[in-house]
């Protein structure tokens, strides 16, 4: 056995900094994905056919191609096509946000359609306008149904965020590789960030359970 964790000790602050770097873009990607996903879900259940086609095509493309490919395309093609030198940070938010919105839109669509149709009819019969009805009546109830699936998506996003290391973004994963190259030992730093990823996901899981309990208050 050739294991020596003491060697990574000087690098621990460097690697811990990666938590913040990872969380920063994951946070923005989740926000972007959720907003866009909600809009796409509303397109899908709405009555305007072109919007529905758009949302379906969008989902098909972003679910049908690898995330790492989408990330590379955004990172390399934008400078080539527009001359704008996009940062790894922005590329990562865009790629993960756009990709995630495809999945989130499906989750939300299913959640909305699972809400009792009577709720919609009751709101309509009261003369509540469509937008207010969606925001105040349908989406809050859908949210309760979809929270577990949504948390799952956020957890996946957090873990898969490691692939931004391929465009040189100094996230947790990339930092483990840098340390590994410095030390000529890879296992210890990889294991170290592995534990950190696991802690992040556990944190998300706990938050998810708390929100779920809070939403169950009315039962």
């Amino acid at each position: 056995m050739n294991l020596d964790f003491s060697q990574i000790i000087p690098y621990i602050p460097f690697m811990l900094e990666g938590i913040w770097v990872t969380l920063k873009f994951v946070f923005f990607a989740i926000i972007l994905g959720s907003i866009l996903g909600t809009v796409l879900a509303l397109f899908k259940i709405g009555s305007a056919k072109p919007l529905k086609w758009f949302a379906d095509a969008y989902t098909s493309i972003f679910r049908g191609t690898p995330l790492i490919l989408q990330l590379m395309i955004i990172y390399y093609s934008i400078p080539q096509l527009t001359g704008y030198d996009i940062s790894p940070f922005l590329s990562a938010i865009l790629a993960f946000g756009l990709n995630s919105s495809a999945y989130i839109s499906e989750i939300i669509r299913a959640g909305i359609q699972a809400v009792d149709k009577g709720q919609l009819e009751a709101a309509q019969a009261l003369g509540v306008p469509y937008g207010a009805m969606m925001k105040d009546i349908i989406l809050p109830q859908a949210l309760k149904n979809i929270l577990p699936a949504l948390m799952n998506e956020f957890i996946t996003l957090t873990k898969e965020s490691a692939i931004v290391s391929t465009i040189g973004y100094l996230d947790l994963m990339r930092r483990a590789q840098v340390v590994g190259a410095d030390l000529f030992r890879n296992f210890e730093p990889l294991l170290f960030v592995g534990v950190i990823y696991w802690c992040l996901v556990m944190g998300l899981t706990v938050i998810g359970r708390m929100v779920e309990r809070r939403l169950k208050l009315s039962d």
Partner: protein
Amino acid sequence: MIDVQALSKKFGDNLVLSDITTSIQQGEVVAIIGPSGSGKSTFLRCLNLLETPSSGNIEVNGKNLTASKKDIHKIRQQIGMVFQHFHLFPHMTVQDNLMYAPMKAKGVKKHAAEEKARQLLERVGLGQKAKAYPNSLSGGQKQRVAIARALAMEPELMLFDEPTSALDPEMVKEVLEVMKDLAKSGMTMVVVTHEMGFAREVADRVLFLDHGVLVEEGEPESFFQQPKSDRARNFLDKVL
């Protein structure tokens, strides 16, 4: 108040309402009865355009419903509806259920909506349940809240779609009492019901539907004692 002209409704090839013409006056209480599948509920749901008629005209207060699809929610604000399965908003307290639509759809101020909600809950005998969530209520209580919620919009007309059919027998009475009070107060009401006693006692007029056809209409006394059509007689023999 409501004028229905040659109303027909198809679901696919299935004709559920066939050429119905009738009118309902201000302050009138009309009971719609008939066997299940006769189109009673569909007829009622056409009156606030929850179902879109396949042909024919419906006017409410002189406004043609199918022609005003764009601002249908304005017309719906004047038409309260009570459903068989209540459809209270489960994530809101009873009081918020009553306050939501007046505030969102009519722009009523919060304290006014709250005051109105309090009054209405007292009126249906549920003043102490204002802060409860719907899922903690019994069926009868839920339905009374649902009636109060519809009344909070101060409608000119109330539609009831089998309001007691989903209730345990011992809870039917409390809901019917509330509806009787409402009828006494002069509210225009259209009630799809299986409660023949209620139809007989409270309604000013009975419409009998069978297979989507308005077979017979008349005053409850004469209808229940001497129905003119065989179909109505058969039906009454079975339910009375």
